[in-house]
């Protein structure tokens, strides 16, 4: 039974991280689409904002799971992003504003890139462990 639990645990971690990775790649594609006029700012913001809460909760779940099993290294690794999320929420900037997106698109794209890198690192950590 412990083996099954173990497998389920790692499967969840693996799938959650993979899901986050897909989210980020999708957002990045959307940002590129915006800059080449493929979609309008409204659509972009609605789609990226729809992803925000799933991403946040999945990441919270990941962090919690790592902490629960005592993987302190992984936990410490994912903590900064957690703080980043909370900070943005505190500033009420976690959701994109479709009226101001064009002035923020460069920063947001950079953020998404950084998050992508971060999840890749986490992904590698989970696979290697």
């Amino acid at each position: 039974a412990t083996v099954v639990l173990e497998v389920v645990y790692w499967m969840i971690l693996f799938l959650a991280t993979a899901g986050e990775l897909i989210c980020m790649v999708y957002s990045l594609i959307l940002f590129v689409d915006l800059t080449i006029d493929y979609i309008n700012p409204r659509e972009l913001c609605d789609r990226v904002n729809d992803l925000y809460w799933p991403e946040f909760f999945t990441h919270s779940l990941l962090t919690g799971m790592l902490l629960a099993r005592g993987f302190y290294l992984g936990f410490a690794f994912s903590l900064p992003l957690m703080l980043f999320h909370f900070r943005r929420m505190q500033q009420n900037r976690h959701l994109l504003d479709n009226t101001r997106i064009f002035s923020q698109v460069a920063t947001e794209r950079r953020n998404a890139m950084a998050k992508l890198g971060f999840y890749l690192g986490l992904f590698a950590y989970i696979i290697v462990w």
Partner: protein
Amino acid sequence: SAAVSTGANAFTRHPPGMDGGQTHPSQESMPGDWDRMQVPATGAPQGYGWQPTGAGVQTTAPALVQQMNAMSLQGQTPMNANHPSTYTPGTVTPARMVPPGVLTQPRTMPQAAPGTPLHAIGMANLPRPPFSAQKLKIRITSGDPKLPNLQEFLSLDGSSTERDSGGFLVSEMACPLESYIPVSPRHMQMTSAAFPNSAALFRKFGLPIGISVNPMATSTDPLDEVPLVSFGRSQIIRCQRCRGYINFMCKFTDGGRAWRCALCQFLNNVPEDYFYPLDQYGRRGDAHSRPELCRGSVEFIAPQEYMIRAPMPPVYLFVLEATTRSMQSGAFNAMLQGIKQSLGQLVESDRTKVGLLTYNEAVHFYHIASDSSPTDHKISVLCDLDDVFLPSPDDTLVNLSEFRAGFEELLEKIPDLCDAANSNGDRLAFGAAMRAAYLLIGSYGGKVITLCCSRPSVGPGALKDRSDPSVIGTDRERQAIAPDGTYYKDLALEFSRKQMSVDLFLCPPPTSPPLDIASLATLPKLTCGDIVFMRDFVGPRDSKFLTEAVENDLIRDTAFEAVMRVRASKGIRCSSFLGRFYIRSTDLLALPNFDSDKSFGVQFGFDETVFTQKIFVVQSALLYTSSEGERRIRVNTLAVPVVNSLLELASNVDPWSTLSLMLRTATDHLRDRKIEDIRKQLKSNVVSCLSSIRQSSQAQNSFPQPGTMLLPESMFLVPLLFQGLLKSPLLSKEASIAQGLRIDDKAALIHLLDAAPSEVMCAYLYPNFIPLFPLDGYPEAGLLNEGMRLHDIQLPPGLPSATSSMKQELVFLIDTGLTMTLWLGRSAAEAFCVELGLDLSQQVDLDVLPSILLHPLQTGEDRTRNGARARVITQFVASQRPTGTRITVALQGGPLRQKVESMLIEDKTASNLAYKDFWSELLREIQSKSSDH
């Protein structure tokens, strides 16, 4: 037949006063297609201030004289300045005779000096804005005379000489130099008359580079008139790749069968009916007669493809707050007065539609009768605020020309009908009223003119009181000036999609609770509407200003259902847009409504590391429906040479528009950055720019004396204007407090500044101090003789914005662009009142002075008197400012002392340095930055 204009004309510039009034009627008939083209009116270009100083007088080349004599010239027609009318063939129009003296004068052009002259500027000779009468007027009317102008970079003969330093080719132009008229700086203005050739140079320069655009700007200069071009049923000539419009920088090749796009260098084919052979210089033979090939601004009549639907009629919906608050303060009646006064103009277009709603705790719809039947008025009252619906759409929005009598009758009766007595404004259904407006005119689009005196507090869009005066100028201000909730943002986007814009007239009387302008202003911000904020509205004093503002809002030229696109040379990107609009895609601004009183800022950035073109071209295109229901495209094109050295770039900077652009960026950043961070960022930009110049000048082996800076002349004012920016209430906590700014004022200030025209911004950066009394030394100042136009008057020399100007024997007007203050020196106040005709034996209320000053001169009045001249000067300044700008009276040593002191840019305040100290601090930082390298 080729459906393009074939008429010939030449556009020439004349020195002021040389050809004034010399027009003669001509009987020559026009060529067949002449009617398709609008020719600029002639006349003396008075106050022609935006020509670069030193550029001198430009006249026509002798060869052109024969041309002009052979092909009759179009002359002046009286017309609405902003609505170019088309000519009909065969009509007799006066032709212009060119005075012979003008033609023989040589064209004086500045010679391209090898290297850039640098001047040592230090404590002993701190630069200040020029204070001569003419300069002050220019600054008020159109910014600084040093402005981007292609002509300055062209050589004398205009044929094929290449400039060594700029690498700028005259031969690149599509038209001969003498027929070229650049875009007016009122329509488009660039922050520097040169463009860096690489991203590295751009970074090294440090200051932003961009443009301010206002395609609809009105101007009294006949050269600013925009010619109208029609391609008939054939297509407008545009680049196939970048969709840029054909312009004066487009070069024709292949014998005239192909043209190269100036923006993206793509080689396009010339359509058959647009073909014209090239002359010996490789230009089209007819280039001088085609406005699109020889002028910076043109207007095209848009064919069917530019319409998604039939052009909309002008629609005006008035939404008025009907509460005891708006009634007793007089705002309601002042608003009605403004509407009544403009009906005569509105009815000129027989398609105009009008409607009227009032709101308090409920929304009232008025059914308009077609005649002035005095019997009974049908009113529908909507009480269910969460579910807004229309009672009967047929007679609540009516055609003005058919229903004028009924509508006027309604305006007369409405104060009694609107049930204001039962509501004091503490329960206000503003959100529901806006929703009702949306339903009522959503199918057409149009303007929603709104009076609001209280904070919306019931129904959808209700707002909480979140004003806390202590947060002004601190970090917590950011939350207070951000909109509360997304109700108004979502509504504004729906409005924008339906081509509706909201004009807000916010007139809270004194003692009324704050409005939360930060949230309300989202509506005009995203729909390109107007914001008029009259804090502490007192009827007897302010009604006149409100009426005027409403009238101006209704009768000025308005572009309906507009979109604007700005295109720059390939490789350069418009990195940010600043102003009131909604950006629909990367470079497409949705402007449901656009008018002459707003402008946009555009900032450029590099896409690639190098920019290989020799000429940088930027083009703005505004596609709109005129009030006559015609779809038009107004295209402004501006070209500047590309330079490779920092000093050359810096010596072409226009400090006023550069700092205006920085001001606009600051208003944008205030919403998501700390004020302190913005100030630091701006300062580091300026310091890095100045220290780069220092390094470059050292490379040129010119070392400055200790305590001085070596600067090109164009950069002289940068430190002073920058200090003005830092000291303005926008970025300075101290000044906000001194000027008594509350959260509402701050929010309104941000929204007013980000769309303000450049002359307002210039005055905001360095307030104008204009003497009104005594004017003994300047007998010409303010003299408005019979028959003279107001903008032709002379102004007295201005005073520096410093304590040294505050002499007790003086009276002057302090003009900060958005506010005007009449400052009375202690010992001059009495004499000034006597001059204005006040009886001092009775109690005199100084608050009557503004209305006396703004009272127009009557015929038969002695115009040489100081009082009359002071009135003329005040009226001139007021005419250059947003309509409805009130004048406050400040007596020396009176309660407004602190407010006035905060406008003294050059003086020391508790947290800001005096000009001299600021200068030395800058020097220190520059030196320490340079030694770091």
